[in-house]
């Protein structure tokens, strides 16, 4: 299935994949709102996770994305590289996990105004990694 990135449809497609995946459920409960910031394309989304499922995604303003528990901020090329790597290797390789990308960036990829809520990035990191890794099952078309 071919889906454009970035778009609500893309996140919804990944949502459908993980919600029907027993492995995702077995990782455990995950409760977080995750902002997605692609500021150089002025594209912002919020993806909501609750209990054993991803509830869905919606397109939002920059402020709304930054008001999430934490938001993942990368330029478009960064997102493209990460998702391309995930597609190529059926999951992020050693150099493209969310945590690695976060440490590669001096400002961090996972950001938040709230020091407690930002830690949700760590508390549920395996779930978020699994979510993005699941996108290798999509045919992602990058909207240039």
């Amino acid at each position, binding site marked *: 299935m071919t889906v454009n990135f970035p778009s609500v449809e893309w996140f919804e497609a990944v949502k459908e994949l993980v919600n029907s995946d027993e492995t995702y459920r077995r990782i455990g409960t995950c409760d977080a709102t995750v902002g997605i910031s692609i500021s150089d394309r002025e594209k912002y989304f919020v993806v909501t996770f609750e*209990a054993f499922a991803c509830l869905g995604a919606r397109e939002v303003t920059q402020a709304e994305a930054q008001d999430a528990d934490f938001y993942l901020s990368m330029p478009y090329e960064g997102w493209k590289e990460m998702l391309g790597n995930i597609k190529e290797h059926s999951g992020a390789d050693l150099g493209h996990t969310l945590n690695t990308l976060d440490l590669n960036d001096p400002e961090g990829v996972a950001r938040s105004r709230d020091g407690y809520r930002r830690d949700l990035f760590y508390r549920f990191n395996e779930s978020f990694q699994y979510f993005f890794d699941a996108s290798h099952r999509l045919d992602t078309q990058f909207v240039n």
Partner: protein
Amino acid sequence: MPEEPKSAPPVEVPEELAGVAQRFDFPLDLVRRALALGMPPHNLASQIMSGMRPEVAEMFIARQEAALRGNPDEMQAPPLNLGWMQVPTEWGVRVKPGKKGLTLGSLNVGTYGDIPDRWPHQTELPRGAHPIPGVPGMGYTIYDKVELWADNAADLYEEGIARRWRPATDVPWETIELLPEELERAMGQLCTYFCEKALLAGDVVGKWLPRMSYGYHEVKCFLAVAEMDVARRFEVFRKRALYNGGGLGLQSPGLFHRTILDARTWTETSLVLHVVSDSFLLGLYQAGEWFAHNPAEKLIFRRAAEDVSRHVAYGLAHLKYVLQQQPGRRAEVHRYLNKSEMMMIEEDNADNPRREALLILLGGGLSKAQLGVGACRLEGIRARQARDYQRRLEWAGLPERRNLMHPTLRRYLLESPVAA
């Protein structure tokens, strides 16, 4: 008196026991029947001399004889009191499962959710149950909610249960390939440190758990799961150290360990262990995931970071609760932080093996260029640790800590972000 069972074998009654039975006017046929069931003579004599009544003995003996025969119709039920059914606790409670199932926090309905500021009971009485007089006290020392409460304890307990992982089978151990010796030695040294931290955390929490009264079972349950978390961390890092042809390394100087162990209240302990120590440990696990050489190490560090971040969350929420309830303790909290930051820095400076191991792992080797990269990255990690620590304290209600932090840490707050 009921007839003896037809199949009862002849039993010889020892003379001494027969004498006791006669002296206490205890029927000899009951003695024979008890011996036939296997009761040791000296036990039976002791029971008779203690005043056991024949009718009570008859009841127990008949029940056992009926059980041997296997006929439930012959079982004699003991007389029932049933007064306990009139217990004056809240009745008719019906809690329902939610999206995460039936969670601990969802049980806090009605009187079962009344969490008092001071728990008045010294026993294992569950909150909501009815006490009876005369139960011996258990020697708890923590009865005040402010001494251990965190609003997120019940949720963190469930999260710890739901997100548990199994190092033996969940880690793809087979993806670990041979590493250059310096990297394997460095990993072994770092794993040794992580094992120490885990054992210490287990001992510390284990020391405090029995002191906490049962009015705050949410916290006790969370800490019990935290004990499992640290056991798992010890397990997984020991396994990694011994998996790939290497081994463990030198133990650490242990200076900071003592600071944690010497804390005199649970609030101080949690502050030092969860807010300070675990906050910086989380940064090291994040670094571990970053320099991980294979999918196994990636998973180990990612899941270890998940576990320890729950402990940080508890510590922060407890600190926040303390400061909200007892704002006059702010200066006291800063003193604990002053001491623990200082000892942590001193330990970091003294633990040369750990520092060198990190330089090697972050840089990827022993060459001058690699060590240079490692040094730069280590500075970046330290900056990240300091900034994350400060932001956590700000959330907990200590924004002024930014200006009071140990200078070694504070400098990272003043400088520009350094690439990790």
